[in-house]
């Protein structure tokens, strides 16, 4: 499940009103989420949740569900 907070941060960064983000959603499926914009989303997530990612943690992400899990592990939620 993608948390409403993470969804809000991502959609705001992409200027989208609404988009159904599922665990298995990948970046190319979301309008505007390209390889250039990707880093802005990562940065926005870092700033919103006040966490810092390591490069390998981000580079191995395959879908939004992976990002959610990473955020959860960083913020202490399991």
């Amino acid at each position: 499940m993608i948390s409403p907070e993470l969804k809000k941060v991502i959609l705001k960064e992409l200027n989208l009103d609404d988009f159904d983000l599922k665990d298995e959603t990948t970046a190319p499926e979301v309008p505007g989420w390209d390889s250039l914009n990707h880093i802005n989303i990562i940065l926005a997530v870092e700033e919103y949740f006040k966490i810092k990612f390591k490069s390998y943690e981000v580079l191995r992400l395959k879908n939004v569900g992976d990002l959610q899990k990473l955020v959860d592990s960083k913020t202490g939620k399991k």
Partner: protein
Amino acid sequence: MMLINLSLDKILDLLKYNQNDPLIFSTILFLFFFFIVLIFYNLFSKNKNIRVFLLIIFSLYFYYKVVGFYFIILIVSAVINFYLTKWMSTYENFTKRRWVLILIIVLNLAILAYFKYTNFILQIINDVANKNIEPLAIFLPIGISFYTFKALNYVFDVYLDTLKPAKNLSDFCVFLFFFPNLLAGPIDRASEFLPQIDKEPFISKEDLGKAIFLISAGLLKKVVIADYISLNYVDRIFDFPIRYTGLENLIAVYGYALQIYCDFSGYSDMAIGIAILLGFKLMDNFNSPFKATSIADFWRRWHISLSKWLLDYLFRPIQFKFRNLHLYGNMIALFITFLLCGLWHGAGWNFILWGALHGFFMSFALLIQKPKNAFYTKLRIKNTRFLKFFQVIITFHLVAFSFLVFRANNISLVGQVISQIFTFFHGEIITQFIEKLPLIFTLILVGYLFHFIPLSLENKIKKLIAVTPWFGKALILAVVIWIAAQFKSADIQPFIYFQF
């Protein structure tokens, strides 16, 4: 008795390494060997060990025919990458993993740098320090850039834990040595390729149609268009641009863009087609690149396996490092990526300049993206066919210009060609040109026309070939080979991309 000895010697000579006679796809010897391998491959298709054995042995022989005893590098590379990556994967801790990763990267780049860049570095030292060090006699093993990058995508994916290490050395060797994409790509992903080794090859009717289409199209692109126009036109103009009018120079610039596309994508087409016949699906490498509406779009269509590699393993890590710089971080990452992309193509300032040009195009486009879009919206031309048309034309000319830089081993050539085009154009000689060089003109025209045929038509042709009975398929191949033979000049032109 003597006669038998003589012909036996001749045959042995033919089978031995010969610098001027590599075993490339468009040679009769390759077709002959491939046919034999294909027969055995199909006879023993149920036995994985025999399949793997056949692929490894033939790939090594294929590489031996191209580089002689330097084929050992391939084996060294396989052993280093397989065992060190296996060792790396035993560490859960990423700090330790990173140290092994750095070791593997250094070893790979050291081998690559020694063979490819030593003399270039010596030349720079000479120029900077005003010294006179003699260049070393280092043999450049063709394809080394391609298989080094192929090995590295495996290493990186295992490092990131998105891929499990190959089960055994022989599986990894099949991936690394695989002769269809060994010399000039596609730089296939281990994650896509390795699972295919276990599967018993199955070739559907559609696959076969696609394979025959790709092999035929590739052969025609390479032999009929690229070789012919380079040998008989482009090379001559670029040897002495100032002897020709601007019109002829401009046609040479267009001709070269078409030549390099047909040469390289033709080779990729053949590689993908041949791989299909062995039951392997390789990644796509070209998607009508001259239809691109921007330089970024061009790189999504040109040498896709390399641009994806650079995106995943070079651009993304740099981009992440500079993420706090926002837009400027992206621009820096783009520029560095393309600069190194240029260097990957060869040890020469022309390649570096070519990479820098693309890096500049890409990062500049990013900088002006917002005001540009606002401007298009204001003019109400955003997403219109009108705008697209101009975008295609402008992108094509930027790309064609960059290829001129790519081609120029001496930067003054670029100046000469451009100056002829702008100061000595003489457009009126076009009728004379068509009259004197009808075949060149037709080939360039037909080459570009075919490039712009809609994808739907191409797919229809593939389907049509798929449903053609076997003798029809054989006839298509026979006709294509016959046409290619007609066009083949006395010597086979080496593939442009081989030198990288």
